[in-house]
């Protein structure tokens, strides 16, 4: 029969064709009209897992009943009956084999070319599977990225809000929208971690439908389950766990909540700040993605709340600082007022003492007892005079800042110095002093203050002089927005150990007998320059080598 099949061609061609047929990797079979095997090649034997002796003459469907599936049978019968070629793939279960079937009508019946395409199919299938997995991963990745983007976008918004109450409102608002929840609220943990103490839990609600839920009764069952928990709680259908609806009670009507999602807000220090709660009346409304969104928002809310709290503390500190500064300023002002009125009011009784003593002195003149009473009267007069000087200086000190109203004027320091030198003319003449100066600037301030600075520093230089005539030189130099004035002398100098003392009120380094004065001149200078934000210091000095005092005043 095989010979018959080949004999249609020329003998040589027939032998050749048969040879090719025999050795081809495809299984080739020729069946008659009754589906009996007429010919099989070597590959067909391999595929059928039996030698050709057992195949030839046997009915195809009998040998391979598993192949007898409706589509395969139908297609092959179609080819046999209607004489048209067909091609299909079929999975042959017993051999776990994918077969590509090419069927052609033959004069004897039907010719089958079968090819094992199992590997190909498997590869295709695998590809399909991994493609699916890839798509799934991609989707998950995109979802994750969307979640991250959402969380990234709300981070700055939350961090910018420094009012804790508004912050929580934004958190609830954002999370409610992101999860599609119908209700969102926050239970502030009032220092207790036990669900039993729900009365201490505060509640705030926002969101599109927030009004509906205002005044949630916190004793509701569902909160017991969520508030104590330390992690995220997600439930798709509360009706399965809670006894009966409504599961969520509100003052303005009872709204059932079936899906819930709750997450704790824990500060960096580990303190439970409160809990976010989201609800929906539908079931299974919250996904794993919603869970990660809410977790992320809760983490950001924790940071933002910490931030807001720190800000609040910083602000409190600042307010407190401002308040105490203001207090200090007022106290200073009060002290000034006191010093002024006290010294002013002290002048009157002192004048009375002084004048009375002088009258008494006059009345006692020429009397026998005058010699005995004179030293006492002298003491009273001396005491009164000293006291008068002190009071006068104290008054000057208080006045140094008391009368500072009105705008600053452009003060020519050269002209001011000239006026001061005129004031001190008699003492300059007495001591034979030489006062020189470099070019001095025009400066914006109260003229009396600059005059007082010059007057006090120059008269000190005149007072604390050595045997030789005083030489005093004034200069001014611009230094980073400040004018630094310096007054240099060739006087007795100051031991550096006492450099910081000299600016103290009523501080003196010498006895009154050596150098008269109340020790207020430099204190007044300090008060004046500090009023302009400047400072005064002893630039350099050594006993017997003179001193240089400097003070700074703002350029503008």
């Amino acid at each position, binding site marked *: 029969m095989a010979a018959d099949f080949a004999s249609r061609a020329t003998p040589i061609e027939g032998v050749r064709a048969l040879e090719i047929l025999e050795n081809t990797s495809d299984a080739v079979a020729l069946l008659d009209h009754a589906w009996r095997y007429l010919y099989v090649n070597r590959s067909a034997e391999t595929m059928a897992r039996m030698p050709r002796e057992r195949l030839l003459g046997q009915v195809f469907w009998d040998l391979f009943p598993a192949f007898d599936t409706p589509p395969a049978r139908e297609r092959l019968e179609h080819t046999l009956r209607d004489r048209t070629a067909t091609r299909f793939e079929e999975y042959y279960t017993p051999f776990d084999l994918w077969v590509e079937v090419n069927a052609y009508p033959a004069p004897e019946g039907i010719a089958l070319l079968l090819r094992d395409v199992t590997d190909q199919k498997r590869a295709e299938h695998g590809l399909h599977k991994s493609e699916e997995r890839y798509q799934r991963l991609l989707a998950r990745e995109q979802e994750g990225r969307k979640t991250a983007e959402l969380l990234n976008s709300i981070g700055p918004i939350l961090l910018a809000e420094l009012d804790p109450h508004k912050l929580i409102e934004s958190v609830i608002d954002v999370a409610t929208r992101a999860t599609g929840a119908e209700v969102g609220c926050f239970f502030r943990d009032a220092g207790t971690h036990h669900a039993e103490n729900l009365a201490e839990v505060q509640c705030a609600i926002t969101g599109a439908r927030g009004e509906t839920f205002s005044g949630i009764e916190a004793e509701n069952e569902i909160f017991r389950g969520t508030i104590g928990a330390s992690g995220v709680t997600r439930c798709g259908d509360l009706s399965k766990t809670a006894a009966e609806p409504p599961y969520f009670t509100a003052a303005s009507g009872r709204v059932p909540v079936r899906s819930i999602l709750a997450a704790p807000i824990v500060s960096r220090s580990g303190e439970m700040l409160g809990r976010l709660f989201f609800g929906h009346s539908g079931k299974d409304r919250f996904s794993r993605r919603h869970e990660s969104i809410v977790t992320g928002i809760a983490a950001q809310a924790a940071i933002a709340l910490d931030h807001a709290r720190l800000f609040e503390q910083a602000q409190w500190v600042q307010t407190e600082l401002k308040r105490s500064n203001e207090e200090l300023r007022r106290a200073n002002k009060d002290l000034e007022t006191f010093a002024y009125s006290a010294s002013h009011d002290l*002048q*009157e*009784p002192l*004048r009375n003492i002084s004048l*009375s003593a002088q*009258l008494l002195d006059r009345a006692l003149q020429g009397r026998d007892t005058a010699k005995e009473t004179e030293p006492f009267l002298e003491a009273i007069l001396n005491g009164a005079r000293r006291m008068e000087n002190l009071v006068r200086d104290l008054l000057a000190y208080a006045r140094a800042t008391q009368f500072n109203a009105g705008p600053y004027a452009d003060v020519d320091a050269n002209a001011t110095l000239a006026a001061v030198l005129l004031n001190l003319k008699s003492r300059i003449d007495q001591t034979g002093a030489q006062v020189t100066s470099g070019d001095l600037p025009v400066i914006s301030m109260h003229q009396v203050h600059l005059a007082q600075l010059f007057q006090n520093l120059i008269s000190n230089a005149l007072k604390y002089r050595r045997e030789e005539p005083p030489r005093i030189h004034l200069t001014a130099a611009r230094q980073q927005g400040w004018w630094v004035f310096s007054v240099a002398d060739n006087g007795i100098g100051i031991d550096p150990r006492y450099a910081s003392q000299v600016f103290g009120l009523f501080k003196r380094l010498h006895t009154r007998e050596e150098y008269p004065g109340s020790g207020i001149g430099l204190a007044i200078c300090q008060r004046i320059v500090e009023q302009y934000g400047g400072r005064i210091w002893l630039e350099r000095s050594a006993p017997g080598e003179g001193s240089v005092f400097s003070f700074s005043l703002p350029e503008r």
Partner: protein
Amino acid sequence: MLLVDDNRTDALIIREVLKSSGFELEIRTVSDGAAALECLNDFIPALILLDLNLPKISGLEVLREIRQRDPLAGVPVVIVTSSNSARDRQAAREFNAAAYFCKPDNLAEFMSLAGIVGGILGAAAEGETS
């Protein structure tokens, strides 16, 4: 003469200064503005020595009141005060005070008040006689 000063010691000193300078006029002394105006209802002095910083009614108000009372309008008033403020000096000038004397610490300087008072009284007497 009327002396208005709430400081008893100052009043004592002023009286002593005037007395020791030879003034023999009667010096009535009151210690607040209200008492001064009360006293001036039935007493027209040759001169008034008026402190500014007074209880109840201030020296400047007393001065203004005096200038509005017909029999008193021409009485010379010498302001004797511890205030050295330009504002007080200006106000005293506006109400036509005869002199403004700032109380000094020194007795010798205080004595010059006698000269001022003497000058004013002398001028007033001259004006009357001529």
